[in-house]
């Protein structure tokens, strides 16, 4: 194999530099815009690509309880889904964080689990030790129409 020489600095040819510069500028714009989109959003729970490293969201100052209920046609009272027996603990933790994609996917999965289920409702209630307002969230999926209604507030 021929020895490669790296002794001399050899920048790419001018046309290639222009092409690469365009690629670099596009890439950097993407790297800035992607996290910015997250910060400009109201819902800031899905922080996957936002570089919220070691921050107040990752280490939340409150604890949340979640429950999922299934409703049969004509019934006002729902049947509670046993999350511990249904989901891996890691997914329950994602539900506690209120991750939208996980919540919606789980509601759809429950709708598909039985033809007797007309609607599925997810609720997340968070509490702070100092009793300051904490997030409360309720998401309901109508299995027939596929319509989702969501309510979020600080309580």
């Amino acid at each position: 194999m021929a020895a490669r020489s790296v002794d001399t600095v050899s920048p790419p040819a001018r046309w290639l530099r222009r092409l690469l510069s365009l690629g670099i500028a596009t890439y950097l714009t993407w790297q800035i815009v992607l996290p910015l989109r997250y910060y400009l959003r109201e819902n800031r729970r899905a922080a996957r690509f936002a570089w919220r490293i070691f921050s107040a969201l990752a280490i939340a100052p409150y604890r949340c309880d979640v429950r999922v209920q299934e409703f049969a046609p004509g019934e006002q009272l729902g049947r509670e889904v046993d999350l511990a027996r249904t989901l891996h603990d890691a997914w329950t933790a994602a539900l506690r964080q209120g991750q939208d994609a996980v919540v919606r996917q789980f509601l759809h999965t429950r709708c598909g689990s039985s033809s007797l289920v007309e609607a599925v409702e997810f609720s997340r209630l968070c509490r702070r030790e100092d009793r300051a307002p904490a997030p409360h969230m309720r998401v309901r999926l109508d299995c027939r129409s596929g319509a989702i209604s969501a309510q979020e507030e600080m309580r």
Partner: protein
Amino acid sequence: MTAWDRYWFGPVAAVRPYVLEHVVLFLLALDAWVQFVPHGARYGAGNFNVAHFAWLDAVQPLPSPALHVGLMLIVGGLAWVIACTGGNRGLRVLLLVLYTYGWAMSRLDAYQHHYLLSLLLGAFVFFPQLRATDVLDGGAKQVSAWAFVLVAANVAIVYIFAAATKTEAGWASGAVLRQVTGTSQWFQYVWHWVLRTGLSDDTLWELVARAVALMQILIAVAYVVVVRSDASRARWLHLLAWGGLGAAVGFHGSLLLFTIEIRWFSCYMIAIAAAFFLPEAVLRGFVRLATFPIRAVAQSGVRWWTRLPTGLRSLAVVSSASCIVALVGFHLDLPGATAAGLMCGGALAVMGLVAALGNNAARVRHVAVAAAAGALVLAAAVHVSPVRFQYYLYLVADLQRRGEPRQVLAAYEKAERYAPRGQSRQRQIEALRSHLETHRDE
């Protein structure tokens, strides 16, 4: 050249991209084997999954422990082989795709630094392909490496956003820091010692919280500016490099002392900082030391071996390496490991066959030796660290809630085979066996 061109395409010390790529790849290999694999049992549990991208959910099968563990074993092996041999662009692209799929297949993996590593692996595809001798032997040893400069800019963006989030009230008040450090006894001791200076507790927390944000801004500035320091003799640039290194090691090193579940994030960030901020001479000394055994073996050359015909040598090396890789996969006793071993061993055998027909025999021999060495390191790593014990214990934890007692017992018995000293689960196994005996007819 314009200022823009000089920034991206001007010279950097060749040793920097070399060290960055090699250290990150070696870390990634061990990370994949020792950190990813134990968590593989949760993939597909309860027949539920959400991928990081909706389109991926539409095209992929439900992830399984075998898929995730097998993939991570292959990712580690590929990273190891590229680190040892330099690989080629094709292998680097393959590593990027497989690794990215490894975390993107499920939101169970929510570590942001796994996404950062994908960006790094993407940059490595465009890194100058250097060997240790290129870096160590005479000459100017500077190269144009725009992808290396891009990594600096990318890491700076990470730190800037990380610092920006620390302006929020939850962080600025010190509440998050209180929570993180609350269980650390040594920190409490130091904290109370500092409080004797007369500062109030709240003021000190606010000061520390703001200091962390400032450190992150300093690191970001250092990355953007110092990346050009090899082309400059300005003393302030070198001082900034030391400042950036101190801040990065201080910040990420201190995180290692607290019980925060961030896996090897700190190790990667310290390694990246070292590649960018350490003086060139120190990095070259590190490369000289790390590659000494390999260079010594290569230079000595075993005579009888070199007298053998090239084809015979290639056949012997590649077939032996294929067998070692496949056998290690079989020996690991983890879901997906046998398939991963057979696939990698098979791929090596095919490479050997192609090399025998072509003129790339020496290169393929190097890859085969590296793959066999990697497989042996994997076997050693799995023996030394409790990878299998953790894997089966995590499985037990999940099955205890969702599975049948017999499945729990089977997973416990697997874990017991690999229990480190003092962590035997024999008592739980006996209790479970006795419970199953008593309730046999139910």
